């Protein structure tokens, strides 16, 4: 093995000197702690080491096979959204200190704690709740943790979720609930997508820990009966949990205003690139009460003071709850989370400010309404399926065109247009339906291009 650039002690003389200090001739002697009979002796069937140039060329060549949003106009959402990422976000999250830090204490890592506290503070303002936990993997896992909390707080074992929820998200939530709670789905009104309150009432029982709703819903419409749903849940002693897409909170009421007890959501829209769905950020906010905070296994940090006048410091709250201390008695898993994205989210939200987030949300909604209008002019296309307000996503139905969503999307590719997500197998009752998404990134020309491509495809 030649001296490797990432391994300073791979220089033979240095190795010799260190091994001499250890009193061994060969590094192999150090591995006698592994029983000989289980050692792997064949040698790994992998290529041998490569130079930086070789690696770069090889990986770039593979990545070049991807077609990105500069090459295709895409109308995909469904849990990962394309938004503008200000240059400052990338500048800060590529700072090597933030990028390569991990678990240092507040004395060495003050900045990391403060940036995280600021993220928590801004999420707290968006949802208007006082307690925000360490961020977790993504919206689905945060929602799973919220359900666990509700079951532990109430001592009940059932949660109700809308039938309009993303089946993938529901699967994650089920996996996170374990034995703690069973998930039941509440019917929706086919006319407007909203939760069917009669069905909700009939399914609510004294074993219902929580009713979980989403705003905007997975299918794009805005659930407008939140207050009523909250009241119905609370009357039966169940909690109201709300999942949110955070940019919509520039124009939608903060969930605490309509009675939310726990709020979770996806932070990827806050300055984090899509990266094939591989860069997500789950957040969770709740009532600032001990019975809430003691049922989350997530780490919690509080602002505090130091021995020197005027200095800010940070400290962990109720550390004995987390798995690091409680092991199998902890309420959920925690550990390496998504702090770099939380720092990015803090940068993003502080750039936007109160006015900026409102304007952005308005732009998004206007673009969606423009798209809805343009698409509804096309013969045979029904858009949206639900008679409710929509934010950035909406359903597009192709039943009358005698084409499947798959066929439509295949045909659109020829126009370098990526159509919406095919949800016809997720929601068979909605027929041949796709979930389209427009954001502030879509120009009028982009949307017009989609409309004319669709017209062509459906001719």
């Amino acid at each position, binding site marked *: 093995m030649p001296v490797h650039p990432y391994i300073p002690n791979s220089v033979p003389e240095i190795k010799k000197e260190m091994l001499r200090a250890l009193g061994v001739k060969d590094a192999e002697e150090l591995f006698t702690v592994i029983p000989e009979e289980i050692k792997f002796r064949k040698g790994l069937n992998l290529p041998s080491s490569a130079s930086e140039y070789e690696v770069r060329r090889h990986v770039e060549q593979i990545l070049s096979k991807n077609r990105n949003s500069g090459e295709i106009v895409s109308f995909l959402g469904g849990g990962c959204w394309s938004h503008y990422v200000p240059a400052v976000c990338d500048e800060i999250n590529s700072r090597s200190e933030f990028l390569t830090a991990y678990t240092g*204490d507040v004395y060495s890592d003050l*900045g990391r704690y403060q940036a995280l506290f600021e993220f928590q503070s801004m999420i707290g303002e968006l949802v208007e709740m006082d307690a925000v936990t360490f961020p977790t993997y993504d919206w689905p896992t945060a929602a799973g943790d919220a359900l666990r909390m509700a079951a532990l707080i109430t001592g009940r074992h059932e949660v109700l979720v809308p039938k309009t929820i993303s089946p993938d998200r529901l699967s994650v939530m089920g996996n996170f609930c374990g034995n703690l709670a069973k998930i039941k789905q509440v019917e929706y009104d086919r006319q407007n997508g909203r939760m069917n309150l009669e069905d909700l009432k009939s399914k609510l029982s004294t074993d219902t820990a929580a009713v979980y709703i989403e705003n905007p819903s997975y299918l794009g419409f805005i659930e407008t009966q939140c207050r009523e749903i909250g009241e119905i849940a609370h009357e039966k002693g169940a909690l109201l949990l709300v999942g949110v897409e955070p940019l919509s909170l520039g124009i939608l009421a903060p969930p605490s205003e309509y009675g939310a007890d726990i709020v979770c959501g996806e932070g990827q829209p806050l300055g984090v690139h899509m990266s094939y769905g591989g*860069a997500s950020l789950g957040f969770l906010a709740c009532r600032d009460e001990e019975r809430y905070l003691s049922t989350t296994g997530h780490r919690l940090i509080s602002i505090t003071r130091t021995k020197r006048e005027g200095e800010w410091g940070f400290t962990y*709250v109720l550390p004995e709850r987390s798995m690091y201390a409680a092991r199998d008695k902890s309420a959920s898993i925690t550990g390496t989370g998504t702090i770099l994205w939380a720092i990015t989210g803090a940068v993003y939200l502080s750039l936007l400010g109160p006015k900026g987030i409102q304007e952005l949300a308005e732009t998004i909604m206007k673009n969606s309404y423009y798209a809805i209008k343009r698409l509804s002019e096309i013969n045979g296309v029904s858009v949206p399926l639900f008679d409710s307000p929509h934010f950035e996503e909406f359903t597009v139905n192709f039943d009358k065109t005698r084409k499947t969503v798959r066929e439509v999307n295949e045909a659109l590719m020829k126009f370098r247009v990526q159509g919406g997500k095919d949800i016809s197998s997720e929601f068979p009752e909605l027929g041949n339906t796709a979930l389209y998404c427009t954001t502030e990134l879509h120009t009028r020309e982009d949307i017009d291009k989609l409309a004319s491509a669709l017209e062509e495809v459906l001719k």
Partner: protein
Amino acid sequence: MQETVKGVERELAYTAVAWNEPIIYQLSKPGRRGSMAPRPDKKVEAMVGDVLSKIPEEIRRKRLPNLPELSEPEVVRHYIRLSQQTYGVDSGISVGVGTCTMKYSPKVNEALVRSPKLTDIHPLQHEETVQGALEIMYRLGKWLCEISGMDEFSLQPRAGAHAVLTNAQIIRKYHELNGELDQRNEIITTVLSHPCNGAGPAVAGFKVITLYPDETGIPNLDALKAAVSKHTAGLMITDPYDTGVFDRNIVEYIRIIHEAGGLVAIDQANANSILGRLRIGDVGADLCHFNLHKSFSTPHASSGPGSAPIGVKKELSKFLPVPVVAYDGTKYYLDYDRPHTIGKTAGFYGVIPNIVRAYAWIMSMGADGLMETSEVAVMNNNYLIQKLLKVRGVSLPWSESHPRRLQEARFSLQRMKEETGIGVDGLNRRIVDFGIQRCFPAHEPPIVPEPFTPEPPESNSKEDIDKFAWAIQRISDEAYSNPQIVQEAPHNCAIAKVDYSPSKDPKKWALTWRAYLKKHG
């Protein structure tokens, strides 16, 4: 000799950047803004009109969210200052931070994952348009199979604890399919395994039995035999341990658990010491996981995103989370056709940037470089051990039975604590005064009293290790001669000793600025 010590002392004479940076809300001035959102096109505006009126009053936001108001240069300065008050692997010596494998994250890999060819693709795009991403995922999966001796990998789990939870769900599903889940409701773990090996199976709904080490630092086989019963669903442990001890009983454990009808999942968080030398799949484990942010060099990112792919044997691959990346000979695709899948364990497919970084890192190392990695990591660690054992007040529990350790070692400052009052808390507040990252103590419960667990992976130079050992020696000298300096530490950091009292006091703690203003404003 005297001269060298002076040299080190000079090099470690450190003063942290102390900006006394306010909380961002304190910098806010009404009316300022840091960005302009794109405005809708005029024609769009004219056509759609006042869309906000479509939102019923009761669900519309009435007052703007209280976000800070700053200009772009102010935001940049604020977060640059916060970054300067953060200590990364790139900043200096993180040799003390064991269980975390604080190795160097190559810069070329950062350049690769910032390519718009990766950042700007959506997970639901037509498969033809994401062949590059799928190809790297597929290839990494194959390489991880080769490194672990497993048959198939899922890249979906986001971090170690998440991987352990996912493996517990697979164990559950396996017994469910066999109709034995009601009976097999217990997972056995060991207390020196990472705590997620207890938390993961518990969250998945298992009862957890925890074995304790005997005087040799590992549980004895009788303890395991006593714990095994018809209720045993499986064994979930970390090996090598966070103590750097390799549990030689592993072969026997696996035999005993298999005979009892259970499955074995081995947490490979400490794989850095065995790369190319031991494949846990060959030893007989049914499931495992790697932490890409540890052994495979992806940056720790201030505590995530990490990434922790899970590997399983053929018989269990039908339970893997969907989708799995597959290849039909001409193109890569997402395979959802697994009728017995546990479903999804998180959204989409995994932490893609880290998957690309790990792929690039393995390629740069190659088979020979992986062997060199584990060799130098283990050499570094044993070199550090012999240095630290010369320091007054420091001991290495179980050193009689395990004098040599793999990637890390768990020391005790118990004697120093008894003799001087200075324990690991003091050590950690003082060592940062020398510009060295603090040490990882240990996970609970305190099996080793006053523990600290350094780990010097292969990217540390001999000089780094020498300096780290020098600092430990120096703090020991201070503890025995002038303990006050340690008690009152830190002295050279951005802030002084913090008031920990909000930690347990609901009236004092404030997890957000709004809560702080309510409680203390």
